[in-house]
């Protein structure tokens, strides 16, 4: 194009020097909302470390926190991806129980470990598919579809066990998830799985075209569709992924605990949404990161553990998570509005 065309306003807004630092902070926050969670995480770690006289960062204590993190972290990542895409999944807590119980029953019935795990993942994928299919075909809120699925899947889990938790066969190679690793056995093998899946999910979300489509679909579905993004398939894939992550996470937990209780994961769906929101994921879709999901999940674990170590009545835990969730959303919306106002004034 030889001749420049000028379709727009000569745009870059110039700000008074005084406001520059503040505007820069707001801009960083808008581009990387999970950084607020990181800052809070560092702050709380320092506070708990001092309050607990150095116990908080001890190997034993970190082992406890890091052993549980892969389980809640994977669920939070799945929920975050789906929320970025503009949908919800409240059935993850039930899926967290259905897959391990199914795997236990199948392996007890003679199915080898690897096919058993794969079949378990297929079951999780089918539940995710059903969530997506019903939501998109009948055009109803996924909040409702997956609320129904929460009850259906939990009920199925109890029914297939006949009310008695199946035993976990002792010859299963569960060491590939539960083995202690690293100096002082600070990590479990599940952490490696978690790290690999988290890195892959992060690369998918920010580095792949599918990730771009997920953001676009959740950010503004009409624009995404007009640009040729297959929005229906993108949403279906996110539903399936979210459900599989939850089932896999539950299976890791059951291997760690050694007992496939049909009741595990109750209330986890809300904790996962809380973790996503605390990590900067927008309820309206289009915004969120894997790092944010992990930071949110870690914050919840750190608060749980830190309150106990600080000798605070453990019943305050849910209070703290609730307060943090509300503050995170209030802070997010306030910061976004303020950022917009600053821009308009400039």
């Amino acid at each position, binding site marked *: *194009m030889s*001749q*420049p*065309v*000028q*379709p*727009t*306003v*000569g*745009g*870059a807004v110039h700000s008074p020097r005084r406001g520059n630092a503040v505007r820069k902070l707001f*801009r960083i926050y*808008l*581009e990387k909302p999970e950084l607020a969670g990181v800052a809070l995480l560092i702050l709380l770690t320092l506070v708990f470390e001092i309050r607990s006289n150095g116990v908080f960062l001890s190997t034993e204590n970190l082992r406890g926190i890091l052993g549980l993190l892969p389980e809640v972290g994977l669920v939070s990542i799945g929920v975050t991806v789906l929320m970025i895409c503009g949908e919800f999944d409240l059935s993850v807590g039930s899926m967290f129980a259905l897959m391990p119980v199914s795997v236990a029953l199948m392996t007890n019935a003679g199915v080898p470990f690897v096919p058993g795990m794969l079949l378990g993942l297929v079951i999780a994928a089918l539940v995710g598919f059903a969530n997506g299919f019903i939501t998109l075909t009948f055009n109803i809120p996924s909040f409702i579809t997956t609320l129904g699925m929460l009850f259906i899947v939990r009920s199925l889990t109890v029914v297939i066990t006949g009310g008695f938790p199946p035993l976990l066969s002792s010859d299963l190679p569960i060491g590939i998830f539960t083995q202690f690793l690293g100096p002082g056995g600070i990590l479990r093998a599940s952490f490696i799985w978690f790290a690999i899946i988290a890195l892959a999910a992060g*690369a998918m979300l920010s*580095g*792949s*075209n*599918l990730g*771009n*489509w997920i*953001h*676009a679909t959740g*950010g*503004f579905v*009409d*624009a*995404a*569709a*007009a*640009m*040729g*993004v297959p929005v229906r398939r993108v949403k279906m894939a996110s539903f399936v992924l979210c459900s599989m992550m939850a089932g896999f996470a539950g299976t890791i937990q059951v291997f760690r605990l050694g007992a496939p209780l049909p009741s595990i994961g109750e209330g986890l769906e809300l904790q996962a949404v809380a973790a996503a929101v605390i990590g900067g994921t*927008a309820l309206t879709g*289009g*915004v969120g990161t894997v790092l944010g999901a992990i930071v949110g999940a870690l914050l919840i674990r750190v608060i749980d553990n830190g309150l106990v170590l600080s000798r605070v009545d453990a019943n305050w835990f849910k209070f703290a998570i609730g307060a943090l969730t509300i503050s995170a959303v209030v802070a997010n919306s306030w910061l976004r509005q303020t950022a*917009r106002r600053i*821009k308009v004034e400039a």
Partner: protein
Amino acid sequence: MTTPLISVRNLHKWYSSVHALKGVNLDVPPGQVCGLVGDNGAGKSTLIKILAGVHRPDRGEIKVDGRLVEITSPKSAMKLGIETIYQDNSMVPTMSIARNLFIGREPLRFAIGGLGLIDHRRMREEAMSAISDVDLQVRSADALLSELSGGQRQGVAIARAMHFKSRVMILDEPTNHLSVKETAKVLAFVRRLPAQGITGILISHNLHHVFQSCVRIVAMARGEIVLDRLVEETNVEEVSDAL
């Protein structure tokens, strides 16, 4: 006479019981900027949504370069070189300018079955050149779209259409929500489309905008074309009466 770039014959569209298009015929020769006017519900949006691949016609045929085509999706419209700029819904406010420019058409380092990793460096470079090609001044290609004014957003949409070498640019009420100054710039851009070898279709409520920037005016009412004149052969009163 040259082969029309876009030729629409006997196009019909029903929305359940509403007959939105009643046998529309329209030929747009290459390099012409054609204004499409009409009241709400006249069928102009339906017509351009069919050309953009958002809706499918119920009957009738569309030819591009004299060749019969099926426009089955936005993607297939883009492949034919038809780019559409909507008044408000062609950009994702929560994403960066660079990502918005390439939604659905990301430059990939490799791909398996259509999915792959984005070549971020190439995307940023191409975004910068696409932006400077339309003389759009923005802080950086990484700025979020929500940081931009309405005019700047429309500039990004135009940059996208230009970057992907569109042959036909459909502008659906591009000046809605824009300031007077921004509107003038968009109209000036539309006037210069033929100089760049691009055919344009401008949809507008505002007859004056169409008279300022188009050489031909097509008026629609109740799903039919009621007037089709060169701008120099008609005036605002005649077009208003036809509507």
